[in-house]
């Protein structure tokens, strides 16, 4: 078992623990959130926000390469300090979530996401490439590859990232719990909840805000492109298994963490990239859940979808 070796062999000096813990924390966070993403059909928004975060990564790197003090170039061989990244990237993600929300009022959600996604990808690619050139000229640490941002870099995750993931997981979890009633009422029936005093605009902002912040930490594990998968798959699978909201949320957390853990183990054993391996494992769980849902639906009354 390589997994056990990686985690417990003193040779590795515990280097694999932060990635594993961060992955599980991210899965814990993505579990309940993914139920809302699926029910409110926010998968495409999530995609928009995560790709926008790519723009934030680019800008943060560019700032680091130009040597703006705070961005602390070349700390620990990195161009970008984790602290700087953990402020700029969520900031950019929140801004783009806001932009999508605003634009969608006039141009429709579909167009809004398309526009924001493309513009921030353009900014991100341009900024990363310029950052690379600048860093080379100034003899700074090389910026990480595009692939790393796009598909995740969980093995580079350190204890700081673990702490950040934990903070985000706790904050999002607490917000979800605190606003569970208005949030779910609004998600189920926006107009009906308005009559009972729920402010739809606030609920929407809250959910998009949580999604933007979550996307940023999920990105460490799964990257820009695959982040949405972790925020959709567990919820989609849970909705096949649980009949009512309580069990659905429970299933979602269980499946999210189970899929992530399985993905990590499979990735370690077969020497695969962890991000894609986790997404694949969660997709398999979805397939199983669908099969189970169909089987149960044949036995008793099924949940109409």
């Amino acid at each position: 078992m390589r997994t056990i070796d990686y985690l417990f062999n003193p040779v590795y000096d515990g280097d694999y623990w932060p990635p594993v813990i961060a992955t599980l924390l991210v899965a814990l966070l993505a579990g309940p959130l993914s139920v809302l993403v699926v029910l409110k059909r926010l998968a495409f928004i999530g995609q928009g926000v995560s790709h926008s975060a790519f723009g934030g990564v680019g800008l943060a790197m560019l700032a680091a390469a130009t040597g703006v003090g705070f961005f602390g170039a070349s700390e620990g061989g990195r161009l970008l300090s984790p602290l700087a990244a953990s402020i700029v990237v969520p900031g950019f993600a929140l801004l783009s979530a806001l932009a999508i929300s605003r634009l969608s009022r006039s141009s429709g959600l579909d167009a809004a996401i398309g526009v924001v996604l493309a513009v921030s990808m353009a900014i991100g690619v341009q900024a990363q490439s310029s950052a690379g050139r600048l860093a080379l000229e100034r003899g700074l640490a090389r910026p990480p590859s595009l692939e790393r941002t796009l598909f995740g870099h969980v093995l580079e995750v350190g204890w700081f990232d673990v702490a950040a993931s934990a903070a985000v997981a706790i904050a999002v979890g607490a917000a979800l719990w605190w606003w569970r009633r208005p949030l779910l009422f609004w998600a189920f029936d926006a107009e009906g909840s308005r009559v009972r005093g729920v402010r739809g605009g606030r609920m929407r902002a809250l959910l998009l805000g949580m999604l933007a912040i979550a996307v940023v930490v999920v990105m460490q594990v799964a990257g820009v492109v695959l982040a949405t998968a972790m925020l959709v798959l567990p919820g989609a699978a849970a909705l096949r298994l649980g009949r009512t909201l309580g069990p659905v949320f429970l299933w979602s957390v269980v499946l999210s963490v189970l899929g992530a853990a399985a993905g990590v183990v499979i990735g370690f054993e077969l020497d695969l990239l962890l991000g894609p391996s986790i997404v694949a494992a969660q997709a398999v769980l979805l397939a199983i859940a669908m099969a189970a849902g169909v089987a149960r639906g044949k036995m008793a009354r099924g949940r109409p979808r």
Partner: protein
Amino acid sequence: MPASSGSSEVAIEVDGVTVRYPGAVEPAVRSLSLRVNAGERLGVLGPNGGGKSTLLGVILGGVRPSEGRVRVFGHEPGRALALGLVGHVPQRPSLERGFPLTARQVVRQAVSISLPAWRSFGRDAASRVDEMLGLVDSTAYADELVGSLSGGQLQRVLIARAVAPGPRVLLLDEPTTGVDVSGQRRFAEMIDTLVSTLGLTVVTVSHEVRTLAATSDRVACLSRTLHYHDAPHGLTREVLAELFQHDVEAVLDGGVTAHPHAPGEAGVHERGGAAS
């Protein structure tokens, strides 16, 4: 029996309300004034586009009048909603039918929303929810998922949801669209029970004469402006024809069927309009 303290208390007051939607040349409703006393059951009859939904929107605070003012038990609409004074049953529910909620949970949602986040749903609230489901004859399918309910069942659940938080006013928007005659009669009976048990003030908006006649004490005809008639006797063929700009056969005795293109059927009231 109705718990409306003081029979002359005004439940809803609409005073000189005009609503102009952005981009529309004609106002949706013009100088609308309306007074509903506590415990009264008012029906609002009118053609499509006559401003019925606008009127409900104004009372619910979702539509802002360009002129005039609205009060619900003395409060402006937003405040009245916040106080839980108003229950609303929409015509076409905007809800997500694929949501994993049972009928009972749908009703619970509307009650639990007023609890602070740290409070759990208590036994009293739970029994209140069950009682409301009983009042609308929905106990049998209380544990079915919303997605598996029929249109009529869903509507009953939504009525239970509207009254469960204990509002004083119930607004019904086209409650019997697509319901057959016997269904309409049962609906009227249910509303009767509900209103007398809970002491509600009811405003029902519809283009169906029969529903309104059976569930209202007084009918207001709305086609941008208002005319009042006592239900059902004031709703003559002439009044209806004028209102709908169409020849209408109104058969209102005990809710017997009316067919617009079958003149000669029994029971048409030919009395003069009793507009007040």
